[in-house]
Every structure is written in C-alpha cells, then in structure tokens.
C-alpha cells in the first residue's frame, strides 16, 4: 500500500509539473501574439480583455496554491470555464 502511495504521489507531482509547463507555454504564446494584426477593433479588444483575464486567473491561481485555498480555486475554475465559453 505504501509503495502505491509513493508512486501516486510522484505521479500527482508529475502531472502538476506538466500542467504548469503547459500553462506557462500557452500563456507565453498568447501574450506573444501581435494584436496589431487583428484588423477588427472589436475583436482585438475582446482578445485583449481575454488575455488580461487569464493573466489575472493565473496570478490568483498561484496565490491560491500557496494558500491551499480550495474555495478560491473553485472560483477560478468557474471563471476559467466561462472564459473558455466566451
């Protein structure tokens, strides 16, 4: 049993590390996008707003992680889903 727990702990850590890399990479991609290429002013503003929202979610997520704040994480999950739908 203890061996399984050991492995699961390592696996959980690996998944979290991968997820962090994924977030960092996608966030960097999004932020590196040249918004001036978007001709439609309305679309450019929406994209800009979305990036800003996700930056905010990422920052609050990192804070919530350090505080182990489950409530805040649940709020962030909802916000991120809404962001995706929008």
């Amino acid at each position, binding site marked *: *049993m*203890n*061996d*399984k*727990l*050991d492995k*699961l*702990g*390592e*696996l*959980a*850590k690996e*998944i*979290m*590390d*991968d*997820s*962090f890399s*994924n*977030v960092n*990479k*996608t*966030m960097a*991609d*999004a932020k590196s*996008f040249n*918004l001036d290429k*978007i001709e439609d002013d309305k*679309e450019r503003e929406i*994209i800009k707003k*979305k*990036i800003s929202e*996700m930056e905010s*979610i*990422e920052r609050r*997520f990192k804070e*919530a*992680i*350090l505080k*182990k704040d*489950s409530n805040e*994480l*649940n709020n*962030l*999950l909802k916000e*991120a*889903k809404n*962001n*995706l739908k929008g």
Partner: protein
Amino acid sequence: MSNISKNTEAKYFLNNIERNAPLEWEDVKITAEYENDTIQPSLSTDSFVFNLDARQVVNQWISDGLTGGVGIFEGMPFDLVLFNQNATQKKFESFLDFTNDYRDFPDDGEVSVSLIDKNGLDGFFQQLTGTTFGYLEEIGVFTESDYINVPYVVEKKFNLFEILMSSIVLYLMVKELAESVARTADAVSDAVTLILIPITGAAAVAIKATAVALITIIYTAILLLAIIDMATTLFNTLFSPKRTHKAILLKTALTKVANHFGYDFITPVTEYNNLVFLPSNPNFDEKALLGFISVTKGTQTGIPNILDYGYFTEDMFNLAKELPYAKMAVYGNVIHLRPKNDPFWIQQSQWVAPDTLINTLQYNTDEMKATRVLSFATDLNDEYTVDNYFGTAVEIRTQPVSVINQKAVLLKGLDDVKFNVALGNRKDSLNAIENLLKGVAIFIDTVTGIFGGGSNFAASINSRIGILKVSTNYHSIPKVLYLNSDGTMPTNHRDLLNADVFWEKYHKEKSFVRDNWNGQKKVYNNITIPFGFEDFLILLTNSYFNFNGIQAKLSKFEWITGEDNATISFYTRVPYTKNLQEIKIVPA
C-alpha cells in the same frame, strides 16, 4: 576523648544571653537513637526546667507573638556551653521546642520545655513534615524554569480497531487518488481535444489553449487539495500527537527544598544526574465537537500533584533515600544524601570507643530476612508498566547451603521495599498504524511540496522513536525516568534504572551473603562507657567509630548530662555463619 567531661562546668544561653542554669540539669537524660541505621541520631531529652529570669524570658518569647514577635511557633535559641579547667570549650546549639511538652507552672515559678538540635536532621525533617510542593510552588520556590519538558506519546496497547480503520480508509484513499489521477489525465486529454477543434483566428486558438491549460491545472489542484485534506484528517485522527509533560530532575527538587529551609544539598548518587520525577497526570485531553483531540493535556507542572506520593516534601526525600538505600546527615550547613555503603560516612568518623568490658553479645538475626523484594509500582492506567515488567522488581531469597532438619530452619521474614513510583517505557519502534500511515505521511509531504511545502508528517512519525510511551494520557502513579538532556530516553534506560540495579549497587548492603557476608553483625547492647560532652558532640555528627581496631556503628546511646558515663548500643560487621546462599529472581 572525654577529657572535657571531667570537672565540667556549664553556661546556658537563652536567645544568646547567659541565664541561670536549668533546675536539676545534672539529671537531664539525652537519648540518641540511630533509627534505621542513620548516621546522625534522633534526639529526645528530658525537659529542661527554667526558673527566675530564664522562665520570664521563655514566656516573654511566647507572649511576644501577640505584639509583633515570632511567638510560640519559632524555637528560641538555647545554647549549652561546657568548659573545664583546660579551657576547652564546646557548644551545643539547639532550639527550645515549645510544641513538644511545654508546661508552665506559675505557682512554682518554673517552666518546663524540651530541646531540638539546631543542626540535626530532626529539625530538617520536622520542617519538611507537612510542607508540600504545592505550597512551595505557590510561594515561588519552584518556577517554570525548574521544570523540564518530557516529550511522550500515547499509544494504546491494543489498537486493532484503529489498524482496521486505517487499513480501510487507506485503501479507499488510494483508490480515490488513483481515480483522481485518471480523471485529471482525462481532463488534460479533453483540453488537447478542444485545442484541436478548428477555430477561426490564431489569437482565439492561443487564448483557448491557455484557458484549457488553466482549467486543467486548477482542476488538478482542487483534486489534490481535497486528497491532502482527507489524508491529513486520516493522519490526525489515527495518529496520536506527540505531547509534552512537565517534570523535574529529582535532584533539583531536593536541592530547592533544602535551600528553602536554609541548607545546601549534596548527593553523589550517579543516577540522580539523570533521574526525573514525572508527576501523575490527572488531565484528560480536550476534544472538539467531532471527538477529535483539540488540545493535548500533559502534566502542567513538574512538581508532584496532590494525589501523588511525593507531594509532601518529606516523602520525596524518603523516596530519594529508599532508592539508593541511602542515609542523610547534616555537616555544617550541608545536607548529605549518600548510599549507606558510601565510604564517605566512615571517613567522617572520629570517635574511638574506650576499652570496655563486654558482658553481652548478640547477633543481628532479626535483620535476616529470608525474602527481600525491591519493587517499583505498576500503574493500571499505563499498561506498559505491567506488560514491560522486566526490571520492575527483584526478589532475593536467602536459604541455607546445607540442612539437617528442614523443619528446624530458622530463616524467615520478608523485607518488602516498595518504591511508590513506576518506571517509564520507551518507544523503541513504529507500531502497525504508524507503519501504515508512514506511506500516507510521505504522500502528503510529497504532494504538499507541489503547493509550496508545509507538512512534515514523515519526520513527525520518526521523531517519536526514543521518547516516553504510555497507554493512556492519564497515568495515575508518578514515574521516575532516566532521561537524556533532550528529554528522550536512552535505548538502555531500563538497564540503567531498574530494581536489580538498585539491589546490586546499593541494597545488597543488607545481604547476609554478598561482599564477604557483609550484612552479618555482632550486636552489643547497653554497654556502659566513660562519656562526656565532647563524646556527645562527636556522636551527634557521625555514629561510626573504632572499637578495638574494628569499625563499629552506634545504634543508640543514653547520657545523663551530669554524669561522666553513658550506655551505648552498637554493632560490628563480623560474619558468624557461612551456611547461607542467595537466589535472585528477576520477574519478567
């Protein structure tokens, strides 16, 4: 030695002022008894009778208690100074003891009162009697800085239910964790799928990918936090916390009490450098609404509580004497507590008995006990004191080597020495639950590492090794513990502190077999010898002496102060039978 006794004259001082001699002082008898083989005697005297101005001073001392004086409950200094034509002068300092047989006779103009030796143990023990550690703590003699922290853990002797519970919960936890990891993997997979959905606009694709990545990591974090919460609850529920008792080094307790009464304290008993007195613990843990422990309750103070043997300071000194079969004596201002076999006692002896005609010789057959038992207490509230019994008691059986008629064997009697404290038990290894939970602890520590760290459950399990272990939090018998300076118990603590150690190092002094038949004595009772004031003063200090070139020890003497002789009783250590052998039993 008794040259001062010839043609002796005396002066009497009450409260440091010379007064007229007590009436019939020549007939006052002083009896010195060395009960339990003590070094210094317990004195009893006929009362001294004072008249004239001496009576007035004595009674004034008492009546001053109404007008700001110390009054009847403090002894009045009474010094007896004897001198002779050689200008040799000796002083016996004492106090008038108004609480013992004080009587005033107004019609006769006399007052009768007894004495107590100023520097004797009697005075010290009379002060100890009724003085409690609670009182001494209340007035600030004992403070927090005198106490030491003793870490301990409560570990039930039988915890099958907890093992069963933890096994089931552990299984469910692993299962849930495995499923959670799988669900997280699915979520990641879904996110990837979402990204692959054709959408218009490169920026929108990047934003969607970021959102999916965020959702994935938040979801994973929520699941992991839930699992950490569950594992932590499991850990805290099934894993008894490490707690702390307050205790006190026995030597510190004795020293502080002696200091309080104006004495210094010395003991060479090596065990006392590490021997800690742990009071009983009547406290129950505080529990939260769901029944989990919210506040652990060890002993709150290091001194004995009112239910304990040792709460009365006299009992604590008696315990300290009984363990190493010790004697106490006062030299100058210092109380010595030393084993009876300490050569110090004999080195201090100065008196040489005069050559005397011995009419009667006896043997100390009354001190022969066929069975001797030394035992520490057991505590039903701490099952380990029963389960790990080895060293708690030792039995010595003395029997004849050869017998002609078994029915005629005269060896009998029991010497049952009970130490009213229990021994401690060390946590030597992790138990089944701890081994089960060790995996949980490592898991929690690993996963909380992802969240910036914070837990150290695995180390907290291992830190329990080497500390005191009890089966419930409320042990009812005080314990003596052999501790390292950090409060842990050495691996061999039971080898260092057990009944057999105390027998072999100290109590075997009583043995009629060991150390060349050391316990066998020839006894001489009521021998009349020339005796004087100087002899009296020497024998007040030390009862060992030289008798015809052999070491001897007094058990009693009676001296009528106006006479130049006394009757003494004493013994010498001389084997008188070798037809004895001992069998030692150490119950496990």
